């Protein structure tokens, strides 16, 4: 009898979730990147990253990453597992999401370069390998005729790859310094130069006109100085600015939150493709989980390029509706400001908002309509809040 009891106890212990300590990438109180030892909870395996809610695998494998793998991969797996758990807890504890509570285990793939194939799960290795990104894929039915089994929703983290910026044909940019100098040159400097020329012409053509020599020399000096600065700025930029781009998405907490938010919102927002709406909503919840209006910043060891900022003062432009601009932070900023107007229950407000929109909604049409409808239903003083929201939308040129 005693032996049986011990066996049963051992069995229960082996089947129940347990925790283990790992080093992960975290944020400090000042939102800086730090390394920290944390306990990973709800693990169901004693020797791999297989948990009750997440299984972390490498590439196309179905086996969870072992705790004996190399240090770099362990850091990624532990960081991803830790932040996914945090993101899930937010939706379960704070928003009481029944949908998230009922989700099946999410498979999370690290270091995968294959494109997503709706039919075959993974496209051929040679079909445009992907780096420096992360994505969430919809569940698939598989293809019985080709022995492709069905799969659930998955999160994929691409490996990082150093890309020289000169290999990207960057165009049409007003870089901060370059833009300022260019505009100043074009507007102010050319005007003063024209004034100087007209003064000179007046001196030659009008006997009564006396040229102010000091003023003329100042104009010429300033003009030459400005021209020199303009001509040399490319060299200055080249010396002082970054030349390489890379993104290790599995080590950036806000990107992990962003991807999980896609999963948590997928009962209404389809995961088939990126749009400004679906990305903006995921950004908003990533910001709330991170408790910060900035995403993927101050983490230059792992990300040298992208970063999103809800406090950026952007006005609406028609191109923000298009696919090409899906990952800019206009919708993120807009939702953040809407949240400030809504006040205390902003998180549940935003979660409710997903019911009013779809992945393909437009910003100017359905998103605005959805915000106002949700407010009519859920704002604490709907009339006043709706007026404030309309004012905000007007200021954003929406």
């Amino acid at each position, binding site marked *: 009898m005693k032996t049986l009891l011990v066996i049963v106890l051992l069995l229960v212990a082996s089947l129940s979730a347990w925790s283990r300590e790992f080093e992960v990438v975290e944020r400090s109180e000042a939102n800086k990147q730090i390394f920290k030892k944390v306990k990973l909870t709800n693990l169901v395996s004693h020797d791999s990253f297989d948990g009750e809610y997440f299984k972390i695998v490498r590439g196309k494998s179905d086996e969870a990453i072992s705790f004996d793998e190399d240090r770099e991969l362990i850091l990624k797996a532990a960081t991803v597992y830790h932040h996914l758990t945090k993101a899930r807890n937010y939706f379960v504890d704070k928003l009481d999401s029944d949908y998230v509570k009922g989700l099946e285990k999410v498979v999370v793939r690290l270091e995968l370069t294959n494109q997503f194939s709706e039919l075959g799960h993974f*496209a051929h290795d040679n*079909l*445009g390998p992907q780096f420096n990104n992360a*994505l969430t894929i919809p569940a698939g039915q598989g293809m019985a005729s080709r022995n492709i089994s069905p799969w659930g929703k998955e999160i994929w983290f691409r490996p990082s790859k150093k890309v020289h910026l000169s290999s*990207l044909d960057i165009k049409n940019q007003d870089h901060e310094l370059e833009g300022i100098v260019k505009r100043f040159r074009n507007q102010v400097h050319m005007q003063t130069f024209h004034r100087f020329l007209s003064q000179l012409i007046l001196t030659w053509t009008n006997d009564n006109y006396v040229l102010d020599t000091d003023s003329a020399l100042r104009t010429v000096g300033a003009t030459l100085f400005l021209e020199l600065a303009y001509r040399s700025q490319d060299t200055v930029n080249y010396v002082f600015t970054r030349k390489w781009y890379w993104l290790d*998405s599995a080590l950036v907490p806000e990107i992990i939150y962003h991807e999980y938010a896609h999963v948590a919102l997928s009962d209404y927002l389809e*995961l088939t493709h990126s749009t400004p709406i*679906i990305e903006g909503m995921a950004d908003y919840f990533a910001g709330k989980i991170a408790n910060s209006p900035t995403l993927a910043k101050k983490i230059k060891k792992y990300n040298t390029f*992208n970063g999103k900022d809800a406090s950026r003062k952007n006005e609406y432009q028609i191109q923000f509706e298009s696919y090409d601009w899906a990952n800019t932070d206009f919708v993120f900023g807009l939702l953040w400001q809407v949240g400030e107007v809504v006040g205390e229950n902003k998180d549940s407000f935003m979660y409710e908002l997903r019911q009013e929109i779809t992945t393909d909604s437009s910003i100017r049409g359905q998103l605005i309509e959805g915000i106002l409808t949700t407010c009519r239903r859920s704002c604490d003083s709907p009339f006043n809040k709706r007026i404030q929201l309309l004012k905000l939308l007007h200021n954003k040129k929406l």
Partner: protein
Amino acid sequence: MFKKMMSIMLVFAVFTVSAQATTQNGLKTAFDELNYALTVEWDQQDKNFYVEQMKSFKSKVNELQAKGLSNKELIEFAKSEVKNKKLAADLDTAFSMISLNRMTSEQASEYLVDLVKKGYSTGASWSSDAGVWIGVGLLLVIVGVAVAAGGGGGGGGGGTYYCTDRYVCDYVCQYDYYYGTVCFDDCYWTCY
């Protein structure tokens, strides 16, 4: 007599609907087979493989057309396969443009592929992803339909398929710490 008439009409209606469903299912199966072959099996280098798959797809579509699949159904099916609804709506305009401008099949396929290559299911990603639209095969067949309607020339829809290497660019915009909004051409070689 009335009962008999009604029964005959019902039988015809059921037969028509089921025949329609069969051709639609056949098209979906043929399309999925082609997509699987070109995205999962094809090493992206063996051009003969590409040409063979396209020929086989075209002959299946021809069979379905012989069984009653109309051009309109073909176009509607293509639209239903484009996941991005805004792009799907744009397809109507695109087909009209091809017909009106009497584009050649090469011009038309370039125009259409460029329009819809981002419309397929690529997942929701953190930053812009140059996802390859993999419904190209179906499009090329439809291009044939649209080109024929416009009176354009070329062989894209006529049964001869060439996998032509093309250097294509996607316009991608991202935010950057230093530069603000940065747009650039993400260019690569592809074949259609």
